[in-house]
């Protein structure tokens, strides 16, 4: 009886260890708790599943962001050593809110008008074709992750607020939608 109990106890320990190992190896994004998690960069509460982003370090520490803009700005403030500690970065698939996709393989677009949490109108999708319905609001063409980093460098996202002159501000025609 005692022996049997010990065996099943050992089994449970092994099962638990396997589970922990599996979790550690999966390296996926941690789901964002909308309405609870805060943005590690701007401190806002994260609400909108179309724009949220995430950064995971080698040590498994998770930083959540309300927007692509905040992920990029945060990344820009890291020195080389801290950038080396970054394991993965994730952005939301605008076409499938709540789904996080790898930042490096997503397609990006900037759109004009209200909506994005930080006012610059950045969004991402897994399938480039999903950008097609957004073309009429687009400012510029589709971008890759390096394009986005270059844009943030050009516009100094972590230093300069978007303003009236920025693309995310509305034009008198086209946007915002008047339905």
């Amino acid at each position, binding site marked *: 009886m005692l022996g049997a109990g010990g065996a099943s106890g050992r089994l449970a320990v092994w099962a638990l260890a396997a589970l922990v190992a599996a979790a550690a190896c999966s390296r996926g994004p941690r789901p964002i708790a*909308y*309405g*609870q998690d*805060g943005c590690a960069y*701007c*401190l*806002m*509460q994260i*609400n*909108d*599943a*179309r724009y949220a982003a995430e950064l995971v370090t080698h040590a498994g520490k998770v930083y959540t962001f309300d927007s692509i803009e905040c992920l990029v700005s945060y990344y820009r403030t890291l020195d080389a050593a801290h950038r080396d500690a970054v394991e993965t970065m994730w952005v939301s698939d605008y076409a499938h*809110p709540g789904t996080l996709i790898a930042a490096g393989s997503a397609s990006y677009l900037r759109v004009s008008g*209200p*909506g994005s949490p*930080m*006012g610059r109108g950045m969004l991402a999708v897994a399938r480039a074709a999903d950008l097609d319905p957004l073309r009429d609001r687009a400012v510029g063409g589709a971008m890759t992750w390096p394009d986005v980093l270059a844009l943030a460098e050009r516009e100094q996202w972590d230093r300069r*607020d*978007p*303003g*009236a002159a920025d693309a995310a*501000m*509305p034009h*008198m025609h086209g946007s*915002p*939608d*008047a*339905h």
Partner: protein
Amino acid sequence: MRTSVTAVVAFAAAAWGAAPARAQRTLVVAPAGAGVFHDVQAAIGAARAGDTIEVRAGTYREPTVVVDRPVAIVGVGRPTLDGESSRQIMTVTADDVTVEGLRFAHVGTSYTEDRAAVKVVGARRCAIVDNEVDDAFFGIYLAKATDCRVERNVIRGRARNETSSGNGIHLWGAERILVDGNDVRGQRDGIYLEFTRNTEVRGNISEHNLRYGLHFMYSDDCRYVDNTFRDNGAGVAVMYAHRVAMTGNTFEDNWGSAAYGLLLKEIFDSRVMGNTFRRNTTGVLIDGANRLVAEHNDFVDNGWALKLDGSTQDGRFTANDFTGNTFDVGTTGRVLTTTINGNYWDHYEGYDLNRDGVGDVPFRPVRLFSVIVWQNEPALILLRSAFVNLVDAGERVIPALTPAAFADSAPRMRPAR
């Protein structure tokens, strides 16, 4: 519909005879009856600039009403415009439009558009007054609007979860708007301003919203005065803004690990005067503020009265009262170029031998234990222990970990207010 068109033609003909062509008329909309319109859009279609459209009691279900000419739409007996959870209810595109006395109900959620009960797009001099908004995605939404008034509206959101709720009063790219005496609850943010300038938010009540009672983004030269922000998910956030005046507001009952009365993030040349911060996890959280002046505020019964993070430069805190707070001030220990002289602290244990009302020894509001708790929240369970009291007492005598220069050199013996 044919009868009502005939009616208005007859009416117009009568008006021609009796008055100059441009005289203002009143067009009546009612659910039934002869000689009236049966939907709001038909009345607008027949209206001329300056006309009043009187909407009688009843429930109207029609496609999104587009107000494309300067008219007043006035409800009598609180008629309901029902969006049937599938569409925006009213879009205003013309200048000089008044929308008053209506009830808007059931605006469906959408991931692709910011549907609202009333959306004003690019118009001037609108007045959205004394309406009720129930179960809306966004409530009253002004995009690129100028010189408008949003007054005495009552907005009751569905408050299910953040992702399916929009903001109660949403101003985007707007200028010179007065938001006065509204009552907003159950939305994502109660009142939201983005890229909005020269706007005043006065005498509103914003409570039980899922995220912020009030949220400023990139909105310069705005004032908010005499508002009450209560029990919102995370409090009030004023972010990335210049020259904001915050006066006479009450921030209370914002509890939660990430909640605060007021978050100031990247704020320049702003003033926080005569506000009350009561029963918040953190009264005011400041992360990046330049030349902030805070005077005559009351910090009562908060977990932390004041938390200073990031660079808080050239700020001045004077004549504020700190009573009943667990911690008065927390900092991340960086060099602070902010002065905190002449405040009242109930934790002050100094004396006033010359009886000039000013304590004779400085008060250091940053407790060592508060520094430990900031970095390691579970340590909070040690708060009432004798050991922690001893550590704090030692730190007061010989500051080692807390910023020694950060002290009130002229603490008041009595509250300022």
